């Protein structure tokens, strides 16, 4: 019996390693097709963002809609440091991430202290997201309304200005794997248990001595830091900085919908959600072209609606239930 479990664990780990191996050699397998590499870059980016949002929303239970604000502000910090002081983005992205983490702490601490929870907190964070975006749009930076092209540097590696998509593919893949592992460890740690306790019952958590205000702020700051680390990568990938791209309300909504549909508070849920979202959007783009612009969003909308109606807890829990059912059927 015990041996059986051990074997299964091993085979599962083997599957994961094989998947990572395939992802590493994938650009070679697809013959360096820049479009396919781009699709996978987007999958990793969304997976990263959804995993990160899962920390505050899925594990701590605070549904924050201030997501792209950290993504965008950190991009601004990092890119301006690069343009004005020549600081390489490898350092700049962490400076940006640290800045937004402090910002998150400063903005959200008063909210948590005053007991802003649930829907009220969600809408407060949505308002915060929108305010910063509106403010950045008033800043006449670069050519027109804040759009700023990032020049090409000679030292591609140092300034993260690669001319092909593959390096970004590997950076994003690495970042996603690191963040997945980090969140996996976080959930099993003391801090993670505090977060989950707050999610399950805030008053009970407080009564056993967890400083809920402090740990909610910590959770928001971790989330902001991780969002902030990804922002500069995305901006440098695009090659331009524009408030509509980095603060995109669409990306914000997509993060929320993909994570909720995938499975809030589950480790793999955000990944399922983002793979489905990007695959659907790119598929419809390939099949229907630019003629029907919003078609992929209609498809994704129906998918999300169906998941919420049939598996309100998300796709990941649906899969878990299915697996349980199959196993039960197999035994009997």
């Amino acid at each position, binding site marked *: 019996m015990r041996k059986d479990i051990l074997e299964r664990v091993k085979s599962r780990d083997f599957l994961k390693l094989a998947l990572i191996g395939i992802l590493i050699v994938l650009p070679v397998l697809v013959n360096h097709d820049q479009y396919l590499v781009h699709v996978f870059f987007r999958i990793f980016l969304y997976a990263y963002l959804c995993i990160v949002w899962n920390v505050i929303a899925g594990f701590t239970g605070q549904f924050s809609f201030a997501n792209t604000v950290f993504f965008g502000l950190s991009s601004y910090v990092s890119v301006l440091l690069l343009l004005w002081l020549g600081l390489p983005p490898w350092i700049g992205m962490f400076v940006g991430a640290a800045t937004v983490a402090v910002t998150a702490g400063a903005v959200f601490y008063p909210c948590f202290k005053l007991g802003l929870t649930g829907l009220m907190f969600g809408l407060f964070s949505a308002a915060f997201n929108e305010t910063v975006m509106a403010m950045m749009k008033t800043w006449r930076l670069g050519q027109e309304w804040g759009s700023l092209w990032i020049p090409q540097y000679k030292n591609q590696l140092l300034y993260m200005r690669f001319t092909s998509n593959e390096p970004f593919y590997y950076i994003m893949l690495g970042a996603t794997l690191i963040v997945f592992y980090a969140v996996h460890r976080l959930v099993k740690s003391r801090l993670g248990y505090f977060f989950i306790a707050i999610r399950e019952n805030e008053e009970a958590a407080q009564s056993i001595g967890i400083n809920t205000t402090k740990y909610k702020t910590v959770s928001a700051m971790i989330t902001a830091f991780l969002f902030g680390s990804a922002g500069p990568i995305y901006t440098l990938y695009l090659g331009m900085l524009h408030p509509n791209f980095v603060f995109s309300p669409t990306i914000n909504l997509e993060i929320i*919908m993909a994570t909720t549909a995938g499975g809030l508070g589950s480790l793999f849920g955000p990944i399922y959600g983002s793979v489905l979202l990007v695959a659907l959007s790119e598929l419809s783009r390939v099949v229907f072209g630019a003629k029907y612009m919003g078609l992929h969003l209609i498809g994704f909308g129906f998918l999300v609606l169906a998941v919420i109606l049939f598996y309100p807890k998300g796709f990941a829990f649906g899969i878990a239930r299915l697996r349980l059912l199959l196993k039960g059927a197999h035994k009997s």
Partner: protein
Amino acid sequence: MIVGLLIIGLLQGLLYALIALGVALGYGVMKIVNFAQGSFLMVSMYIVYWIWAIFGLDPFLSCAITIPIFFLVGWIMQRTLFKRLLFESWLAQLVATAALGTILDNSALILMKTEFQTITTSYTRVNFDVFGTTLGLPRVMAAIASVITISLVYLFLTRTKMGLVVRATSDDKEVAALMGINVHRTYEFSFGLAMATVAVAASSLMQFFYVTPYVGLIFSLQMWYIIVLAGLGNVFSVIFAGIIFGVAEILGGTLIAPLFKDIVVLLVLMATLWFRPEGLLGRRGR
């Protein structure tokens, strides 16, 4: 000048209150977090636009067609989709309704393309001079329509038997059910009513605003900001919150810079929530 701006802000705010009223009713009665209302508003605006473009009917007269249609749509929606969302968490409700809104918005995008459509009636260009600022007649009419609709809904809820039933269900649905009230029928009716207010809002808005497939996105979040400012579950305080929004927007937009109108509004909202987490007019404590 300031007095004129305040008047414009007040008129704008009354319309915002009408737009938010539908969602406030939905939350107040059924505790449903509805983010699809902006998209329903967009659909209704398109219907009003096409009725005007084909038959030349005045936007306010087309209310006679859109109100029954939207009441029925609301009834059916509550009966089929929203009924299943009643017991989900608010995030699931939000995501499901946002998904519904996305479906509507993008279907409209495919059907209607991205052009801006506006309605021009005989009185569109009639302007008044109020304390040094110009005020268009369509805005005044939209504000009057809002006041009439909100008053009618208020009178309905406070003076009629069906209104009493709706209020009782909103207070405590289990007890209401024990008293012999058909809760689901009441919900269907309330959602129909909420959608009917959306139809009026669309007609009023079409007097001076444009319609595009994504126009709902402008209002989807804004309605919720107004409701949160008013205090959750407080149906009629949306009037005051709407007026605050309208005035803040006009003052910020004209006294600072046009781009700052949203920033001022959102800063007002954030400051309010920081100091009064239950909303400006909400009740303290739970």
